[in-house]
């Protein structure tokens, strides 16, 4: 479907005409409560579950044998697991940015997409949280990173970026989960009230935590949700800054860069918007949500992705410029090696996918071409993984000690873990599709009410 030019008003429309509070509630809750599970869901879920099985096998073998099954070597002691971690946690930012940051800005396009984005965040964070744990040589002691009181009076090394990272991810996991759940409460209560089957009534009744919709509930809900949003919006910046410090805190050339914290925030935002687009584009068709997720949403998300891509491209420029500006020989070595060496194909792939291709979104017609946009977003998601891979591996392979220069060659288990983590994410997301309303019904009702009031004026 090509974009209809329409008027300025049409372009900004976040709800199609004819959508009412009643129709939104009926449609969205029926998707969960009444609708027969569609075939595409079974196919998608089956494939995802298969990949998830692969993940279990890969991690099981990892637990039996040790991290040696991966391609990590010496001097490249970090590999896919860390790249995967940064990738997943970066994509998770999409949900938080949309639901927290744009809640604070009171953007009207946020309401219809926030649930999809937040659900995505929850499962991305789950994937991200697993990676640093299985990456450990002795994963069963991962809790030693936490400053818990113990008889040996041993504390973590508070100067270590990995400790900051552990704390950051812990807070982020907890925060995202609670934010998501709190935002779900009124809708869970709606489902409880509309459910006809007993198991649904019990399930949603328990989950709704006794939500009555009283004005006191709403009052407290508003306050809590606002607080959460005010907390999560800076948190999404801090976690990616700290992820950046995981690298910048080391003195490996190519990592030791002051620009890494914002660099990682921009990268996270880019991949976050891209993955939201990748979910929204097919889901608005599959779930028949075109009435509430309009071209306006697509347009906004695409513009955001473009913005993030420009910010990140600036970082890419700085990354190449600074070593030469400083004249640090070892950093120049890393950069020239990235531009021309063993990892050059990866490096240029990241430049093209993250920096060059998104530039077509300057053109509105292309921006609203959903299949094309989907492909660009997919390119960005892949490109962002490549970016992290290049940062992790490319820098280590040109370290300070020339005699130990070597390359990283991934094994089948590296790929299995990566593919398996995608399976873990999709499995979770498909289950959420089936059991959780994918559009925030109460927010849309509120939005429609507001629009109606505005229209009436």
């Amino acid at each position, binding site marked *: 479907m090509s974009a209809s030019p329409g008027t300025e008003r049409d372009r900004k429309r976040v709800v199609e005409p004819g959508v009412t509070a009643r129709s939104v509630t009926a449609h969205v809750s029926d998707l969960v409560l009444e609708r027969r599970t569609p075939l595409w869901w079974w196919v998608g879920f089956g494939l995802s579950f298969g990949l998830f099985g692969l993940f279990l096998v890969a991690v099981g073998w990892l637990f039996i*044998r*040790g*991290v*040696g099954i991966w*391609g*990590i*070597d*010496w*001097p490249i*002691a*970090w590999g896919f697991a860390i790249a995967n971690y940064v990738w997943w946690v970066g994509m998770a930012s999409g949900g938080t940015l949309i639901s927290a940051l744009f809640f604070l800005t009171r953007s009207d396009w946020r309401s219809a997409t926030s649930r999809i984005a937040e659900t995505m965040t929850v499962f991305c964070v789950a994937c991200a949280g697993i990676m640093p744990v299985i*990456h*450990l*040589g*002795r*994963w069963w*002691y*991962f809790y*030693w*990173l936490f400053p818990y009181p113990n008889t040996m009076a*041993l*504390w*973590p*090394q508070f*100067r*270590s*970026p*990995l*400790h900051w990272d*552990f704390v950051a991810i812990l807070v982020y996991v907890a925060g995202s989960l609670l934010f998501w759940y709190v935002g779900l409460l009124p809708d869970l209560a709606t489902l409880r009230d509309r459910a006809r089957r007993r198991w649904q009534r019990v399930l949603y009744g328990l989950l709704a935590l006794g939500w009555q919709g009283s004005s006191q509930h709403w009052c407290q809900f508003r306050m809590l949700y606002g607080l959460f949003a005010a907390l999560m919006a800076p948190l999404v910046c801090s976690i990616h800054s700290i992820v950046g410090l995981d690298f910048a*805190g*080391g*003195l*490996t050339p190519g990592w030791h860069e002051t620009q890494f914290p914002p660099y990682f925030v921009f990268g996270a935002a880019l991949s976050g918007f891209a993955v939201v687009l990748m979910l929204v584009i097919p889901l608005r068709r599959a779930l028949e949500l075109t009435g509430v997720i309009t071209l306006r949403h697509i347009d906004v998300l695409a513009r955001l992705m473009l913005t993030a891509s420009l910010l990140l491209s600036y970082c890419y420029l700085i990354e190449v410029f600074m070593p030469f500006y400083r004249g640090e020989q070892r950093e120049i070595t890393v950069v020239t090696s990235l531009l021309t060496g063993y990892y050059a194909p990866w490096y240029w792939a990241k430049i093209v996918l993250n920096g060059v291709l998104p530039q077509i979104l300057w053109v509105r017609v292309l921006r609203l071409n959903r299949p094309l946009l989907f492909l660009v977003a997919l390119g960005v998601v892949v490109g962002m993984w490549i970016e992290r891979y290049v940062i992790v591996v490319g820098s*280590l392979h040109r*370290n*300070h*000690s*020339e*005699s*130990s*220069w*070597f390359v990283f*060659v991934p094994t089948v288990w590296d790929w299995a873990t990566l593919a398996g983590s995608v399976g873990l994410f999709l499995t979770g997301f498909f289950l959420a599709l089936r059991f959780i309303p994918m559009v925030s019904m109460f927010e849309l009702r509120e939005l429609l009410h507001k629009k109606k009031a505005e229209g009436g004026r």
Partner: protein
Amino acid sequence: MTGPEELGWRIQGGLAGQSGRALWRSLDELSREPAVLEILRAEFPGMPDLADARVGRRRLLELMGASFALAGLSGCGPGEEVDKAIPYVTMPSGLVPGVARHFATAVTRGGYADGVLAIHQMGRPVQLEGNPDHPASLGALDPIIQASILDLYDPDRSRTVLHAGRASSTNGMVKALVDRLPALAARGGDGLRLLTGTVTSPTLARQIAALKQHFPAMQWHRWEADGRDTVRAGSVLAFGRPVDTVLHLDHAKMILTVESDFLDSAPGHLRYARDFARRRRAAEDGRPEEMSRLYAVESSPTLAGARADHRFAVRPDEVEAVVRALAAELGAGPAEWRQGAPGWLGAIARDLSANRGAALVHAGPAQPPAVHALVHAINDALGAPGQTVSHIEPVEADPVDHAQSIKGLVADMAAGRVDTLLILGANPVFTAPADLDFAAALGKVPLSVHLGTAPDETAVLCTWHVPEAHELERWGDARAFDGTVTIQQPQVQPLWGGWSPQELLAVLDGETRPDGYSIVRQSWMERLQGKGDAAELWADTLRMGVVPDSAAAPVSVSLLPGLADRLPPAATQPNGTLTALFRPDPWLRDGRYANLGWLQELPRPFTTLTWDNALLIAPATAQRLDLKNEDVVEVHTASGRLRAPVWLLPGHAPDCVTLPFGFGRRIVGRVGRDVGFDAFQLRTSGNLWQQPGVELRKTGESHRLAATQHHQMIDSPDVVRHATLDEFHQNPGFAKRKEPQQSLYPDYDYPRNAWGMAINLNACIGCNACTAACQGENNIAVVGKEEVLRNRQMHWIRIDTWYEGGAAAPEQTLFQPMTCMHCENAPCEVVCPVAATMHDADGLNVMVYNRCVGTRFCSNNCPYKVRRFNYFNYSGDDNRLSMSWNPDVSVRARGVMEKCTYCIQRIRNARIAADRENRPIRDGEVKTACQQACPAEAIVFGDLNDPDSAVSRRKASPLDYGVLTELNTRPRTTYEARLRNPNPELQEV
């Protein structure tokens, strides 16, 4: 009648409430009953060997007060029992758990002894160190001797006598031999042959001489695949008689080596390395005029070449021409030899003759006899004898030409003239020249007895195979490069039974229960008797590890006239053809060490290859033939063909390739199986060291080679600094860099000790002894080829190799040992989230294995890349016996990081000793394992708080510099920059 049940009861009865020593006594007593022996044999084929009485051994143990009791206990069980710990019921007196004891003995390499001290923990040897009193060691040890402790505990060693490949009994073997004796005696020993490697053992020599009296027609053959035939032949050519030449490098100012092995493997190389290094360090000690200058002419790179101030990579056929020309220049040969001499030779000749009496020339065993004879002539012309070299009686007993010897043996075997063949510790089926076909000839010998420590190619083809007691398990004696004798004393009861060669020979003398102890003692008691209390002298000798005044007497020889006419014609090589050079692998030698994981995984100098040999070729020649690293080529010679992977080696001479032998063992333990290619297949008796007319054919296949260093940069980086002597004079602080040393944090105070290390690049010869010593001391796991291919080797100290000046003829080969620098501002420490690595009170950067969770950030953040990670459970997967690990050092499990600790266990032992005596730790009291093993004294360790300590003095040198100090790591380990002493005349050219 004694039934099995009763036997069991009696053994148990013997054990109950008894110490290990008593256990032996009861087994001995049991074993003397024939009925018991029969039952034992039926139940456990290997048991009767174990039950053999060794009364003499016990008497010695009492005399020494040495406690082998636990060794007896742990070593006495048959087979698998060995690695089960059995606690003491009653503690033997004099043994303190956790306190090491040292016992002197010697381990031979190619027949020549290196004196060692075996370090015992709880009664078992766990490590070898050099014996400082031994002239060939002076406290240092090379990797091969160090690995012999691993050989001792090798679970793949022979455990039972084999008859036609099946388990049999010792008595059967003895009977087979003894039954043959009357017939042999009747024929005067005709048909009786002995085959050994190089023998320096006076006892063996005495026994063989005695046997020859009984059996006048008996013949003694020798075959040492990497032997020194050419050296011997050269001295015969020059002097008319065999002599051994000992170098006095401490007196040598000008040295020319001709593919010399004096730093790699020559008998006495450890000593030579020390003498050489001392002269090289003279300049930094304020005596620049004493610094020696080294020229090297060679085809295949040697360590000496790497240390040379001027190195010339020369085609093998041109080497002899160069030596002839030099002889002519120095008046030791006819003037026409000068024709076609390279331009640089004149300067060398002038330099050498200007230093008459302080110059020497040395050639390696791969050079033809003519070169050795010429070298003798040149040395004579340089006034070297008596100054820088001395000639002594040959150390080898009854020296013969090995190639002729084995040729004669095989001819006789094939002709059916050999009916009893004893092979003592040799593996000729694998190592003998390929054209002889030893295996086929062996099939025609009715009775062949092979004595060897492990089943090998020869063992399975002989009618009998007898397990040989390891050198650390038996009595024996051996001579060092200068003739000094060491009496070898057993460090442990034979783990799997086993005979010494002396004992097996005694069987030919009609002894059915020979006792190695009395055989060896007999050789020496006569000598000692005249000098006082013989028993006391004997004990002293054993304690010292050296028989006093046993060095060979210098002999006065003079050059026979007319050498020029007697020289065989020099080999020639038509242009455009290739010559193959056969050289022993530096660690596996003739293949006998193939089952030792430490040696398989120890990087070879220059190539850093592990777990493989490769056809070594000059980069230019490889380019001409369109070959690159890891290409598999088929090597065609007149005698056969072979497939081998290619490795490009900077500094290799053009138009020739080196084929290292010792790999490709076919019948060997688990470690050495399917490793490398067997270059012996192409080595023929006529062309033992070089084979002209070789053709390489590309196969299009490739074979992955596990090198440990992948970037051997031409133009070395700033981490390894060097200058010429002149540059040093002009700017003594050339190695220093101005670096800001700032920190937000205040300095820590280390009031007690501040340990530090200095590594002298001027001394380092790149021999890898430190790497091997560290591996043994610190229980470093062997990871195998697949893991090395992934670059996961575990060595805590590595030798980085750098070249300078072009791949074809690098002007410089630089070695730099790299290990944990114990930085004051250690980058690893701040990034570890669980604080598993941190500084201790003495300023060591310690690694707490128990706390490590394996984030590996420390390794990423280490600029020196000296941290090693247990990606798998390497130590657990190792098949070495648990009793062979060093009990002072934790064995690391999967998932933890490890690295150099400055041998913290040694520091702690010294600390305990010092605290008990209420004194500070003395300088030199703590020696790290790498320092201990280093033959060149390159590594010095000690307390930086003490301004007079050896390490503080070294660090005060203007040459001292730290690596990567611009990162403000403030390393505790620093280096002294290397100095070169080039000839100004040649520099201008």
